[in-house]
C-alpha cells in the first residue's frame, strides 16, 4: 500500500509493522509525531504495545532497557537534547547486549536553541556501542525500522536509526507500506536467549572485576564487527522479499569516477541530483552514500574508494578541535591503503542551514580546482 507520509510517521508505521511490545518516549521537536502516532496506534488497538509515558529521556532509555531485559521488543525515538540526556543509559543498553531500536531525528544541540538538522547529536554518541544507520528517504526510514530489529536481535546490540530534522522528519514523500504478513515472516517474534524470567534466578549487570571485563568488551566489539555482514545479509533478504535491497554503503555512478562525494542522510539525495547533472556534462563524478556509521564499514569503504583520486566528504556535523566526523573516520579507514585518495573535508549546513544543489556544485568545483585541501576543514557557506 502506498501512502504519502512524513518521515516521522514512516518511523511509526515501521514500529507498528515490527510488532513492538513496549514503547517509552518523551516529546522533543522534531521527533514528537513519531510517538504521537504510536500512542494513537496503541489507544486504537492497532498496535498491541504498552506505551510508558515517562518524565524524561533518561527514564525513557531506562524503561526500554527494563522492558528489553524482561524479553520484550522495545522502541523509542528522540532527538538532540533528549539523546544527550540518555547518554549514561545508552551504555547500559549496549553493554547489556539489548536489541533495542531507537529512531533519532538529527537536530543541533544548544545553546542557542536550534531545532534544525545537524548530525552532531547522534555522532556524539559514537562510542556508546550502538549501531548507527543513516537514512536518506522516508521509504528507507520505514524499511530500516523493520531491518533494525532483525539486525539488533541477531548480534544483540541496540540500533539507532537516524533521519534529518524537517528535511525528512516533516517532509511528506510517497512510501510503500509493506504487508503485515510479509513483515511477520521476515521478522519473527523476538526470542531472547537471556532475560529476567520468574523461576530462573539469574543476575544481570552486577559488579564485573577486571578479570572478566575485557572479555565482555571484546565480545561487544566482535558483535559490532559481525553487524556489518549481518546488516548486508538482512538488507539483501529485505530486497528479495520487498523489492528494495540495502547495503552498508551505496555506490552511485562511481564507475571510473575521479571525484567521489561521500555523505550521509538527506544530503545524499541532493548530491545524487548534482552527480546526475555533472555526469550529463561528461564529468567523472560519483557518490558514496554512507548508510552505516557504526560499525564503520571499513571493507566496503576501502573497496569502493580504491583507485579514486579525490574524495569530498560532506559533513553536517563537527567534532570541535578536530573537524567533520565522517571525514576523520574516513581518513582513518583509508590509512595504509596503497595510493589512497586525497580527502577534502567539507563542513556545511550546520544547525539546519540549507544545503542546495548549488552548494554541492561548489564543493565539486573546489575539489576539482585544488590538488589537496588548503585547510584542515573546508568551511562552506560560512560568514567569516
Amino acid at each position, binding site marked *: 500500500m502506498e501512502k504519502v507520509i512524513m518521515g516521522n510517521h514512516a518511523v511509526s508505521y515501521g514500529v507498528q509493522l515490527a510488532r513492538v511490545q513496549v514503547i517509552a518516549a518523551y516529546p522533543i521537536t522534531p521527533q514528537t509525531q513519531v510517538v504521537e502516532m504510536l500512542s494513537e496506534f496503541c489507544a486504537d488497538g492497532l498496535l498491541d504495545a504498552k506505551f510508558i509515558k515517562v518524565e524524561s529521556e533518561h527514564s525513557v532509555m531506562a524503561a526500554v532497557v*527494563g*522492558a528489553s531485559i524482561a524479553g*520484550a521488543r522495545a522502541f523509542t525515538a528522540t532527538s538532540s537534547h533528549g539523546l544527550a540526556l540518555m547518554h549514561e543509559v545508552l551504555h547500559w543498553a549496549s553493554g547489556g547486549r539489548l536489541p533495542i531500536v531507537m529512531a533519532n531525528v538529527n537536530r543541533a544541540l544548544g545553546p542557542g536553541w536550534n531545532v534544525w538538522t545537524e548530525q552532531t547529536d547522534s555522532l556524539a554518541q559514537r562510542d556508546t556501542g550502538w549501531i548507527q544507520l543513516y537514512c536518506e528517504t522516508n521509504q528507507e526510514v520505514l524499511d530500516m525500522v523493520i531491518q533494525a530489529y532483525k539486525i539488533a536481535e541477531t548480534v544483540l546490540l541496540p540500533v539507532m536509526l537516524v533521519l534529518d530534522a524537517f528535511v525528512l522528519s516533516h517532509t511528506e514523500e510517497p512510501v510503500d507500506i509493506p504487508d503485515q504478513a510479509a513483515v511477520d515472516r521476515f521478522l519473527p517474534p523476538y526470542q531472547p536467549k537471556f532475560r529476567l524470567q520468574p523461576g530462573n534466578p539469574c543476575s544481570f549487570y552486577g559488579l564485573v572485576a577486571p578479570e572478566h571485563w575485557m572479555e565482555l568488551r571484546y565480545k561487544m566489539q566482535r558483535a559490532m564487527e559481525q553487524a556489518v555482514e549481518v546488516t548486508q545479509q538482512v538488507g539483501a533478504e529485505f530486497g528479495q522479499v520487498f523489492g528494495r535491497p540495502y547495503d552498508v554503503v551505496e555506490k552511485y555512478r562511481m564507475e571510473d569516477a575521479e571525484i567521489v562525494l561521500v555523505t550521509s542522510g538527506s544530503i545524499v539525495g541532493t548530491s545524487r541530483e548534482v552527480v546526475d547533472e555533472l555526469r550529463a556534462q561528461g564529468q567523472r563524478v560519483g557518490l558514496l552514500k554512507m548508510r552505516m556509521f557504526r560499525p564503520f564499514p571499513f571493507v566496503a569503504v576501502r573497496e569502493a574508494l580504491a583507485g579514486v583520486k579525490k574524495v569530498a566528504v560532506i559533513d553536517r556535523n563537527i567534532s570541535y578541535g578536530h573537524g567533520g566526523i565522517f571525514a576523520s573516520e574516513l581518513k582513518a579507514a583509508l590509512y595504509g591503503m596503497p595510493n589512497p585518495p586525497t580527502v577534502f573535508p567539507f563542513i556545511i549546513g550546520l544547525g539546519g542551514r540549507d544545503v542546495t544543489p548549488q552548494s554541492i556544485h561548489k564543493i565539486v568545483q573546489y575539489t576539482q580546482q585544488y590538488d589537496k585541501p588548503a585547510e584542515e576543514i573546508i568551511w562552506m557557506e560560512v560568514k567569516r
Partner: protein
Amino acid sequence: MSYDVPEQELMTPGHVACPGCGAPMAVRYALKALGENTVVIIVASCWSIIAGPFPYTAVQVPLLHTLFATGGSVASGVKAGLEACGYKDTTVLTVAGDGGTFDIGIQALSAAVERNEDFIYMCYDNEAYMNTGIQRSSATPWGAWTTTTPVKHPKEQPKKDMVAIMAAHRIPYTATATVAYPEDLIRKVKKAKDIRGSKFLHVLSPCPSGWKSEPAQSVLLSRLAVQSCLFPLYEVEHGDKYTITVWPREKVPVERYLRLQGRFAHLKPEDIRYIQENVDREWERLVAKAKASGQEIPSTGG
C-alpha cells in the same frame, strides 16, 4: 502479634555486606514475604556490592542491577516487559538506598508512582551515601557527621520527609519499617504485594561503618529509633489514611539512640534537646493524623 516469619530463604548467606548492615536484612525479609515470583531491581548503592560480583548472586530470584537514577523508570519497563511476555502476576521490587531515592532518583520515582506503576519500591535508608564513603544525602539527619558534613560543620538541614512526599502522590500504599520489627515489615510487604499500583516502603537501615556504631547493635538501634518515636512505624493508604502499626511501650528519650552512634558524638546537650523537641512535635503530628484517620489511640501513645 504472633510470630509469623516465613521459613523460605531467597537470600543466600554468601552476600558481602559489612557485619551489622541493615540492608541485607531488609531485603531478606522482603523476599520472605514476596516469594519466588519476584524480580528484584537493584539501584546503584551498597546493595550493588552486597548482591555479589559477577558471576555470583546472593539472591535466588531474577535480579537486575541498574543505574543510580533509574529505580522508578527501569521498574516501569521491567513490569511492562514481563507483562508483554505473559508474566502478569510477577512482583517487581526495586531496592534503592536513600541517595538513589531521596536525591538522584527522585524524579524518576515521582514520575513512576504518579503513573501508579505496579511495583514495590523499597528504600533502605542508611542516611548517607555509604557506598562512596559516607557522604551526606538529603536523608542525613540534622546534626549528623558525614565525610562531607565534618564535625566542625555538621548537617544543618533537617532530613527530607520522603514518606510525606510519596504520600502526597496519593499512591495506594506508603509505609515505614525497620529490621527490629520483622513481622511488621513482612506484613507490610505482603500487603503491598496484594495491592495493584505503586507501593513505597521506607526502611531505616543502620550502617555500622557510617553511623560509627557497634555491628551487634544494629537491631537495637532500629528498635530504639521506633521506641523513641524518631522513626515511627506507620502506613499511609491513598495519601490520607494514616495508621500507626507499632506503638512504643514507653517513649524512650532520643538521646539513648543518638549516644550509641559516633556520628552524633559531637552533639551538645542543647543539640539533643533540639532533636528531642523535633521528634516530639513530629510524633504528635503523626498521632493526630492517625486519629483523624479513625485510628484508636492507646493510652501510652498520645
